[in-house]
């Protein structure tokens, strides 16, 4: 048995050896290897280690060429790295200028009275009404789209005339994206003859056909505590009652005492220091989640999660495989001197307009703040970060946009051409859906079914497929519109859509 767990920042197992020696005082050297193997099996540690390893495999990219420099693990294409770098500079400039304009420091220690007040109010921060009128979000998804539209590969010379055979969308970089046959293979569990939650659990279908058995299997998976099995299982959807535990199993979150302690530590960081970013978070929550018909109830939880999130330095680890780099700030008066550089915000992630919507749907599933926090953090460092950084990764937002446009242009060319002609490039409408992973646009139960599949397939490509499927569904109405505003109106309300039938029809039942 060979365990290579070199990088295990989040899963320390210090007590393993102590446990072995405690339980087996007569360890014989000859059978040591066998004894350890047996012990691991019986104590359940084997499962835990398997889950931990599986978790790491999901997150870290496969090892690349030994001679490749470390930047390649972040992002292999130089022009992408460059674009991400300039985008980051722009964001930071915007943040700094807001800081100067309002004369608010990026970070300051709270006076003792304020600390006490905040501690008292911790569970109801939503009742605070700070004056946020002068704060603006650092950027909105549409600003980011402008940047992506201008991305070009300098090594790629497309001298041909712009014709129908070329890509007519907004994204003009030559990344490889999948076509429908490849997607059908990847998403084979969504096929017409495979049972799905979201389709085969509807009122008309007797539960004996699929639902009962599926629930039974789900309970078994939970009993076995097997991450890999859970990930396979959720491809067909999670039963509502089991979802919270299944997601925790896949993300390998167990809410140990040390995790709770870590969260409490973050909480005390929030109490002690005030960050400029906090005001941005407040503003975002008030603008988005608080105005949502269903998520307004969870306002307080959102503050508790997001304020702690911005102080969590363990998040910095994900920058090893993200194309982004955390912004640096310098202690006052020491600009440029590396010893006085700190990451700002401490977790390196600057929130943008709509950021809090990543957390809101999770409030439906998790109620202890520390568990909710960990689930969100893990979702962020596995998936969400790719939706607002420039990279060539197949789940990165650039690839998703290109996938969306290609699917639409290939399979609904008439619609695509029509929309383009009236100045309503489809990506302009669907971009915001994908950046938010559809949170706030779909009904909650549908959103959770969609996120089941994100976890199951460990990929965000399904977001692009769903976006295309939505356009396909409303194609008839869209063909009749004559302006961007009218097209937006047709696609303004997605709350009645049923996600799984749309996906199934688009992938498996449309004549291509």
């Amino acid at each position, binding site marked *: 048995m060979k365990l290579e767990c070199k990088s295990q920042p989040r899963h320390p197992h210090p007590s393993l050896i102590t446990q072995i020696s405690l339980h087996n005082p007569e360890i014989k050297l000859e059978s040591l290897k066998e004894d350890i193997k047996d012990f691991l099996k019986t104590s359940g540690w084997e499962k835990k280690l398997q889950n931990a390893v599986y978790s790491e495999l999901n997150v870290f990219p496969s090892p690349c060429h030994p001679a490749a420099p470390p930047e390649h693990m972040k992002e292999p294409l130089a022009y992408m790295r460059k674009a991400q770098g300039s985008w980051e500079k722009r964001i930071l400039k915007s943040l700094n200028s807001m800081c100067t304009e309002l004369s608010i420091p990026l970070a300051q220690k709270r006076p003792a009275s304020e600390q006490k007040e905040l501690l008292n109010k911790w569970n109801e921060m939503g009742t605070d009404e700070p004056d946020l009128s002068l704060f603006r979000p650092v950027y909105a998804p549409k600003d980011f789209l402008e940047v992506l539209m201008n991305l070009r590969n300098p090594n790629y010379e497309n001298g041909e005339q712009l014709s129908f055979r070329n890509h007519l969308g907004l994204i003009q970089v030559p990344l490889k994206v999948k076509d429908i046959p490849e997607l059908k293979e990847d998403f084979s569990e969504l096929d017409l003859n495979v049972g799905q939650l979201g389709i085969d659990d509807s009122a008309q279908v007797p539960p004996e056909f699929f639902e009962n058995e599926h629930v039974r299997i789900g309970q078994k998976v939970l009993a076995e505590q097997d991450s890999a099995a859970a990930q396979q299982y959720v491809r067909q959807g999670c039963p*509502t009652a089991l979802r919270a535990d299944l997601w925790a199993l896949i993300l390998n979150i167990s809410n140990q005492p040390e995790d709770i302690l870590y969260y409490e530590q973050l909480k005390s960081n929030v109490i002690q220091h005030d960050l400029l970013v906090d005001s941005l978070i407040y503003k975002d929550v008030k603008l988005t989640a608080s105005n949502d018909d269903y998520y307004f109830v969870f*306002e307080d939880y959102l503050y508790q999660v997001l304020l702690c999130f911005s102080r969590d330095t363990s998040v910095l680890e994900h920058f090893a495989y993200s194309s982004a780099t955390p912004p640096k700030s310098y202690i006052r008066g020491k600009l440029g001197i590396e010893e006085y550089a700190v990451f700002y915000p401490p977790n390196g992630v600057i929130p943008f307009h709509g950021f809090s919507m990543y957390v809101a749907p999770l409030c439906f599933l998790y109620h202890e703040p520390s568990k909710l926090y960990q689930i969100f953090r893990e979702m962020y460092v596995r998936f969400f970060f790719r939706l607002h950084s420039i990279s060539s990764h197949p789940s990165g937002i650039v690839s998703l946009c290109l996938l969306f446009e290609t699917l639409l242009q290939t399979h609904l060319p008439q619609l695509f051409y029509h929309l383009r002609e009236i100045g309503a490039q489809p990506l302009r409408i669907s971009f915001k859906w994908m950046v938010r992973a559809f949170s706030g646009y779909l009904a909650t*139960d549908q959103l959770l079914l969609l996120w089941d599949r994100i976890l199951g397939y460990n990929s965000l490509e399904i977001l692009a497929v769903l976006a295309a499927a939505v356009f396909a569904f409303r194609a008839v109405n869209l063909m009749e519109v004559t302006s961007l505003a009218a097209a937006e109106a047709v696609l303004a309300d997605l709350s009645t859509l049923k996600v799984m039938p749309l996906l199934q029809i688009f992938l498996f039942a449309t004549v291509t």
Partner: protein
Amino acid sequence: RPGWQQARNEEEWDFLWCDVSWLRENFDHVYLEEHVRICHFRNHYELSRKNYLVKNLKRFRKQLEREAGKLEAARCDFFPKTFELPLEYHLFVEEFRKKPGTTWIMKPVGRSQGKGIFLFRKLKDIFDWKMVSMTVFSIVSLDLQRQVSIFSFVTSSSCTQKDETQIETYVVQRYIENPYLIGGRKFDLRVYILVTSYSPLKAWLYRDGFARFSSMRFTLNSIDDHYVHLTNVAVQKTAPDYDPEKGCKWMIQQLRQYLTARHGTGLVEVLFADMDNIFIKSLQSVQKVIISDKRCFELYGYDILIDRDLKPWLLEVNASPSLAASSQEDYELKCHLLEDTLHVVDMEGRLTGKEKRVGGFDLIWNDGPVSRGGNLGALVNGNFVANTHLGCFNDRKKQLKELFGNLPA
């Protein structure tokens, strides 16, 4: 509604949607033909006025205990301890003194939309509140048989007549101090029950309903703060941070999903079964007192509160539930509710009488429990499964089409 005509003032009408004051004034004096339908029962207040409801429930409970034993009677314990004032004042004080420190809520029997309601923990608080909100208040100590002093609550009508006073009846009820909270907020449920006949008892439950959230976080520290404790939308609308766009409402489907995700299907099914029990028992308790009239039907709005042990409590029953809409979703719900009510009342005579479902309404009681299985009263796999679907998927359009074929609605 297709094929219907609105009657003008003095004309004869076949169907009347009236408010309770019209009923009070006219019902006994107007000749009503056999075929007309009217939307209230003559003495609906047996169910909808808080003091009568309490009286009827207490009586029913005693009866059940005599007939079926303590266990069955305990199924009626969904109403928090309530006393009518001034009549039961001494009984109330006895109970009040038994458990010092509990919070009580005082509600006027005749008013709605949260008017006149306040909370208190000490008897003297009653006086304090009176000072603030009422212009005339006198303590009348009556030298009755046992020299008990009775507080007579007098109110003055709206503005001018100082001398015109009416004695107002109140109920005082033990306040539920451990409500179930979501996001730190208290909420109550509004559920719709349609009764088309009391003898025999025939009742329908609408699948949709909503949960109304208080806009402030729940705390027992500020019992003066109406906005925290009263969840009626009418009260919430005047709260300082009320945002009309917000709505403060969840559809019951959403609530059911949330609770299932949090507690699992088993506990949630028990909760909803307990709510079914509340509906049936409350209707049974007034069954014999309500003047039966086959021309009458009534749509009730039940207010239910769930506590932290997932036990539902009945707060009150409204005979004229608000049909004003606070949002687009709300508007649709109420339109569909009304449409389906009219389908069930069936002035067009299209139903056979054997239906267990009409649109969003499920028949829950037809002189006996109604099961989900094939025929009326038949069993499913040998087990009785109630025909209730509160918070479940409401595909009413499809069902209506199946039911009525392709007749014009």
